């Protein structure tokens, strides 16, 4: 059985999904790729928008998400963040 993902891991997974789609992705794709319920995905996306890791692009009725520089920075420093929070019990 897979180990339950931590909050930091889920954020990393969502950001990776967005980045792998050349920086633009529809919410349904995030839902499918990140393996989350719709409610949870919405909650995480709201958090990522607030933290300025992700940007919403609205073209008419279509909504897409793209990764920001801060989001990319999170991904590149993820190992350090994960190590630090694990060691100091902040997960």
């Amino acid at each position, binding site marked *: 059985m897979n180990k339950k993902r931590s909050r*930091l891991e889920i954020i990393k997974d969502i950001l990776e999904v967005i980045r792998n789609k050349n920086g633009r992705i529809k919410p349904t794709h995030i839902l499918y790729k990140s393996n989350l319920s719709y409610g949870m995905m919405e909650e995480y996306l709201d958090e990522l928008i607030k933290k300025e890791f992700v940007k919403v692009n609205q073209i008419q009725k279509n909504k897409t998400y793209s990764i920001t520089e801060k989001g990319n*920075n999170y991904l590149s420093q993820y190992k*350090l*963040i994960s190590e630090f929070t694990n*060691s100091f*019990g902040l997960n």
Partner: protein
Amino acid sequence: MTYFYMVPKVFLEFSIIMQIIFAIVALLVSYFSFKIYKISRQRETKLFGISFLLISISYIIWAIIHSAIVFPSIIKIAQTTTTNISRLGGIGMLTHVIIFISGLITLAYTTLKIKSGKIYYLILTLGIISIIAPLIIILIIFEPLESSTLYTLLITSRILSIFFLTFIIYNYLEEYSKNKNKKTLLIGAAFFLMLLSNADFIFSLIYYQAYILGHILEFIAYLFILISLLHTIKK
């Protein structure tokens, strides 16, 4: 001030060096926590940084106060009388204790992983009241003897520290049972040593040897934290 002269001067000098080391380690942890917060925007890392910053400040205050007592000529005090030194020591101790306990409370709140400012301020206020209330009682009801007031302050603060450290250790053990990370266990062990040193410091009011032992235990605790931090940032 009876307390400050219970231990030989050389031990007080040793204590100042120790406090500076503890302040530096706590400041390093705080710095990296804020650095991680800047990247991850994770609330817990910010709170962790604040708690270690408070702990570091409390040690700096302690070191300054002890320096003023051990080397009154270096830090110029207007009219260096015993009363002035006593007052300075008393105010400094109270400031150190309040900031240190605030740091521990912030740390305990961080480990709770709840998001409620109200709960945080409730615990913080209760903690500070627990330090100040016995002092007021001693000063108003009983004879306002400086030594008894200081003993009360020291014992109350140590008991409070033991209480919050027990809580923090429990959370670290719980965290270790989940992630099996040896560094988490090391941090838990560091807090356990801090708990032992706090218990030991109560006896330093009777035996000055306990004062030295308390510092050694605390030194090992901060060494564990430093090792864990260095291993983390090295990767």
